[in-house]
């Protein structure tokens, strides 16, 4: 298993150069059965990352480009009348895939956004009164431009909370960018990737995550962290129980990627910025939803042991 995980990480690293930590977090997010939100400027490799993940994990992949005229039916699928059989036949939408890339999710109208987010939460979609299960594993990587860009509909807090992690890739380092420019392009690299995992292996890994030991001191540490956001005046509101569940699951997945059978505080600390920063808002920052500073404040303010 260890080699399988390392191989998967390594394969993605080959495509997205110099972003090992972000890649590892994204894999941890998949292992913890969470959805991922990538927020960054255009052209930073959001799409590349999602495609690389899909290939490495051996998952069926669909990409939905969100635009302002996208309708829910374009995501979920529609029933079309079949003249031959004289009945309505359901044509599944792009959502019926194991890994969905919802590109630029904040460009679509809230109505279409909700269609996707409901599917994410329920693991099934209901169209024309019939409930259809989504494939398992089902994993959504949504990307969005930072809210300050024009023509976007920012996701409200309640929908941000559905994503286990929010990542920001950031500019690559000089060396990584040089390597990118010197050698073949992203497209070619993507094509070179071989699946490192079978669907079955991924399934077993996901099932093994909850088995990772999280001892009482770790639970207490998570509780201290969560409580700190609830009690402090620095945060406009505290973290929800969903956030603490997510934090624990992500920390377990991280421990698995570290090839450990148990969680240590460093695992929690590694995933915490990605897990909490989109769920927190500073009291003195009425418009923003960037919680990066808050995550650091939280880590420094709570004793780990």
């Amino acid at each position, binding site marked *: 298993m260890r080699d399988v995980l390392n191989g998967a990480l390594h394969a993605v690293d080959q495509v997205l150069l110099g972003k090992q930590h972000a890649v590892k977090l994204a894999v941890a997010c998949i292992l913890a059965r969470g959805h991922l939100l990538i927020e960054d400027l255009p052209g930073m490799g959001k799409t590349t990352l999602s495609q690389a993940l899909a290939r490495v994990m051996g998952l069926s992949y669909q990409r939905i480009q969100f635009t302002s005229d996208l309708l829910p039916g374009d995501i979920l699928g529609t029933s079309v009348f079949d003249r031959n059989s004289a009945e309505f036949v359901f044509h599944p939408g792009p959502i019926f895939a194991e890994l969905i890339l919802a590109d630029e999710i904040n460009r679509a109208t809230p109505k279409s956004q909700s269609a996707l987010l409901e599917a994410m939460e329920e693991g099934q979609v209901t169209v024309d009164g019939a409930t259809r299960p989504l494939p398992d594993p089902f994993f959504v990587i949504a990307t969005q431009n930072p809210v300050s860009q024009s023509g976007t509909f920012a996701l409200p807090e309640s929908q941000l909370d559905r994503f286990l992690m929010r990542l920001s890739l950031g500019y690559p380092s000089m060396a990584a960018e040089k390597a990118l420019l010197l050698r073949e392009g992203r497209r070619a690299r993507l094509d070179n990737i071989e699946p490192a995992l079978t669907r079955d292996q991924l399934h077993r890994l996901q099932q093994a995550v909850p088995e990772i030991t999280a001892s009482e001191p770790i639970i207490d540490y998570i509780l201290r962290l969560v409580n700190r956001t609830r009690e402090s005046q620095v945060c406009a509101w505290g973290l929800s129980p969903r956030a603490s569940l997510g934090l624990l699951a992500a920390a377990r997945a991280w421990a698995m990627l570290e090839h450990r059978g148990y969680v*240590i*505080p*460093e695992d929690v600390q590694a995933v915490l910025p990605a897990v909490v920063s989109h769920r927190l808002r500073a009291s003195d920052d*009425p418009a923003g939803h960037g919680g990066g500073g808050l995550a650091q404040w939280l880590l420094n303010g709570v*004793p780990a*042991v």
Partner: protein
Amino acid sequence: MTTAGLIPRNSLAWLLTAQVVVLLPHLPRLPVWVAVLWMVCALWRVQIQRMRWGYPGIVTKALAILVSVAGVYVSQGTLIGLDSAVLLLLLLFMLKLLEMRDPRDALVVIYLGFFLIATAFLFNQSMLLALYQCVSMLVLIAALVGLQQTSGRNDPGRAFRTGAVLLAQAIPLMLVLFFLFPRIGPLWAVNSPGQQATTGLSESMAPGDVANLAQSGELAFRVNFEGPIPQHDQLYWRAMTLSQFDGRRWSHTAVSSGGPPGELQVDGPSISYRVVTGGASHQPWLFSLRGASSTTDELVLTRDFMLRARRPISQTTAYTATSWPDSLLDPQGLDALQQRLYLALPEGSDPRTREWARTLRRQYPDDAELIQAMLQHFNREPYHYTLRPDTLGQHTNDEFLFDTRRGFCAHFAGAMTFALRAAGVPSRIVAGYQGGELNPRGNHVLVHQFDAHAWVEAWLPGRGWISVDPTFQVAPERIERGLQEALRGEGSFLQDSPLSGARYRNIGWINTIRLAWDDVNYRWQLHVLGYESERQLSFFRRWFGTADWQRIGVIALIAAGLVMLPLALWTLRPQKRSNDPRKRVWDKLHRRLVRLRLQARDGEGPRHWQARLVAALPEQQPELDAFFDEYVRQAYMHTVPVDDRASVSALRSRLGALLRRLPRKRRPGPVTLVE
């Protein structure tokens, strides 16, 4: 849109509760419309919170202010003075509700509340109020805490508990300030509050007046004796002399009390005592036994040997005095003005009494014998001591002495003084209190208003003023045992005050409770309210050997520091001793590494710390790894029970091995902290 801009619901509930609690002590003084206004304001604010109503506009607010000020003017008659000022403040306190938009406005309301708590003490300083105001403080602080709570965490009970802890932490500092903060005299004279209703004795007396006073079970004053308590019949508490008679009323004049003190020839044993007045009488008269002098600054000794305050008594006052009851008062003689005053009688009044006095005078040329004869007259003739005297007509003394013969102490004293003056003996009425009730618990004497009494002083050449009490001749039990005994047959003792505790003195357990409560109050007044500058200075001399303010200031600062230090240490304690033995082992290592400046960073996890330590102390790597591996194994890898002795001792032994290998001190030269 910020959530910080709203007042949490929980906080509003606390604020409204706090307002009620703060307003309650003022309630007896408030006009009814103020309470109605509060209800309107509170209802309006609640409706604003429920988003049913809006905030009032500027016109409504201006109107509310105008109407309130006019209301104060109408109900108080003035806008100046303590009553009106406090009332205005209360109104602003209520009206502020209507423009309480964000937490800052709520802060204003809370701070006003603290100020109003203080103002309540201008009107009343009793222990019950002090205890009550502690609760008010608690509620206000809870409101303050509630204002700071984040949404989702706004639990009223928690706000209350936090408030209680804060208040408890302030107690040591409060005690230091109580004992050491200088008692500065009033910087300006506050007009005494209330309707200036004087209680107790008044400066003029018609025969019926004392009888009215005798219906009051209120406390006049308390006395604490140094040494044995004198007999009941020795306790003649002098307050003032009444020396001018207009045919109906005896009045006090400045001629008899003004000027330098009279000549006091000290004789016989002395009695020292400390008097605490029962409250504000709004009169300057104080109470002393015969032949008194006092060292208390605020008192003067008058021409007629009374103790008198420089200002009317507007609050509970304490003073010490020493009396020599056997001394001679004015033995050398009276000047012409005094002679005239003490012999003056109104033209044409009471012809029969004058005739009787002249007859006696012819019979007894000696003054002392004359007085004796008059007292015997009261003793032998069928006079009756009663609180329900008959109404008297034009010649009050004549009718009382020869027709009705039923009266109270004022009747007897008035008639005898009149007769003495008619016979040519200078004389005056002394008004004050007689007797008192012993509280065996506190070993002090309680003097109530119903102990009010009037008796006679006559001046004899060579002997000065001597006291005679005609009431003693008629009702000796009044003097020996008190009013209640004297009126036993009549049943008129405190008949108009069914709630007065003194009325039920005969019921054992009520009396026990009453006296115990009185004792607690007395101690409160003596030790807490009575801790004035004089006592404070003597406290300083006794404990610090100095009364120099600079040194006291330094001592106060040191004391405050000493008191707050343990509290600060406790609050800022690095980490409380954990119940988890593994955590204690961890803390021990941490303390040691703090000395080497290799402590864990804020929020640093064990493995990161370990890596940093290994980089800084490469020689100790085996021990470091052994300890941290064991720690991580126990804490995170398996769920080892906290109280598993074997594992804890394994951890301890690894710690011991590590500590032995650690350098004692930080190595010279900078240690680079490697990430």
